[in-house]
């Protein structure tokens, strides 16, 4: 990637153009069901375990912070409410974003990059097959599906972890913790988090595919592409997360 401002603009343009191509190619038949299922399984298999392992300490950290904070403020009865809210609204989309970009996106980018430098992508185009339709669309959809499911997994594991740390380790009262679950959080929080995850999955897969398909310069080029794809995806995901959160607070009325 060049450091000149026009170079950066050009890359953004190409990336956006590819995103549009993906959208345009989405309804084209025949849908690559086999590739989609394979990719969904593949992305899930590389992300599920790390996600579960990351979300336990993540839930625990939130529970510890909120546990001590609520004690200082004398609002122990709100410990459960606050930790559920934090996990559901912010922690789970962020963990999903990290994992889908760090584990899923890199795997997609490395796979496509290796194919690109071995001329497989060119060969495919010469055989009259559009790699966007055949390879990228199934990967984007698979990544979106898995991101949504991962977000659910992170929410459950995070809340359970929070419960365990608050109730068992900080001597919180189980009843109060559970009873306050729904005082602050509402169902639309979950929907918003799932929509975020859906968008994150799409962005991660599109950036990874773009970087993979434009890899050049041998094995080192693939390594560079993977590295850049993670960095770009992280930046995009955190910006997107901020924008979507801001919009969410404007659109959906809050409780309390």
């Amino acid at each position: 990637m060049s450091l000149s401002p026009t170079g950066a603009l050009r890359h953004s343009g190409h990336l956006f153009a590819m995103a549009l191509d993906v959208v345009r190619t989405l309804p084209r038949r025949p849908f690559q069901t086999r590739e989609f299922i394979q990719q969904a399984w593949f992305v899930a298999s590389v992300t599920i375990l790390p996600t579960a392992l990351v979300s336990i300490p993540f839930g625990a950290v939130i529970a510890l912070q909120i546990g001590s904070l609520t004690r200082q403020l004398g609002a122990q009865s709100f410990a459960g409410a606050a930790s559920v809210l934090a996990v559901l609204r912010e922690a789970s989309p962020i963990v999903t974003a990290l994992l889908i970009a760090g584990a899923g996106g890199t795997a997609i980018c490395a796979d496509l990059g290796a194919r690109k430098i071995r001329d497989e992508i060119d060969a495919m185009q010469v055989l009259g097959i559009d790699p966007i339709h055949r390879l990228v669309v199934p990967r984007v959809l698979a990544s979106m599906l898995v991101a949504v499911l991962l977000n659910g997994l992170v929410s459950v594991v995070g809340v359970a972890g929070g419960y365990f740390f608050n109730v068992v380790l900080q001597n919180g009262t189980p009843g109060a913790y559970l009873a306050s679950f729904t005082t602050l959080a509402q169902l639309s929080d979950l929907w918003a988090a799932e929509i975020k995850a859906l968008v994150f999955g799409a962005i991660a897969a599109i950036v990874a595919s773009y970087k993979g398909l434009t890899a050049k310069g041998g094995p080192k080029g693939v390594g560079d592409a993977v590295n850049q794809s993670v960095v770009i995806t992280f930046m995009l995901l955190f910006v997107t997360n901020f924008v979507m959160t801001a919009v969410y607070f404007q659109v959906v009325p809050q409780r309390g």
Partner: protein
Amino acid sequence: MGVEICVEGLTKSFGHQVIWQDVSLTLPAGEVSVLLGPSGTGKSVFLKTLVGLLKPERGSITIQGRDLTRLREHELYEVRKLFGVLFQDGALFGSMNLYDNIAFPLREHTRKSESEIRRIVLEKMDMVGLIGAEGKLPGEISGGMRKRAGLARALVLDPEIILFDEPDSGLDPVRVAYLNQLIVDLNAQIDATFLIVTHDIASARQVPDNIGLLFRRELVMFGPRERLLASEEPVVRQFLNGRMQGPIGMAEEKDAAQVEQELAQLTEAPVVREPTPRLLPGPGIVRPPRWQAIARREAELHRREGADA
């Protein structure tokens, strides 16, 4: 019958670097052409431009009355079905075994039944001598086998034009000879238009109807094999004889004075120039009229040579 490719005024550059400019040539339908050139003169780029993988800055590529450089993406995918391309390392799909690789275009583009696909795939694998290796993965086989498998895959859709990107690179001389024979046999059998990009002089002397030479960002010459082999053009002579004296240097071209001096020294040495016999289709192949005419001409030449000696 193959189709004609008409290239006119083609120019390609990456950024400010011009790869080649104003390349004009016509690949006659059904004939074998070879494009020669020192390493790094953009031969592979030329192939990729021909199939529309790279967009040229100027010029046109006309196939069946359509200009490839002006087609929209989906029209391009249609035209590409006329092409079969053998990439340098075969470009097989690493995740599939050879059988699935070769069956891939059929499964994607046709509604043929599995049994029919099996028949076609085995036929093409037999053609390139790969029977028995159906279940192997591309990573498990030698470079020569990968090339032949890539060729079989390029053949399954019965292309009208076949492009070869350095079919002889990385192969031993015996395998190169076999591959050249295979190319000639194929041309007699399927009658497609062939373009071979290479820097192997021996193949270039034996195989083609036409030879072209890319050098110094230009197509120096393109014409019938006999004309190029007999050419007095310094670049052509240097390249076909694989010697150091001449305009082609190690890294880039040399300056004019040095070239002149080298060539002056060279004229003192005797120039041996025997005509190279042309490679003909194997005995088991039914020769179409075009190849019968070539064989007759070759036999004539040899008789005359024999009489001279």
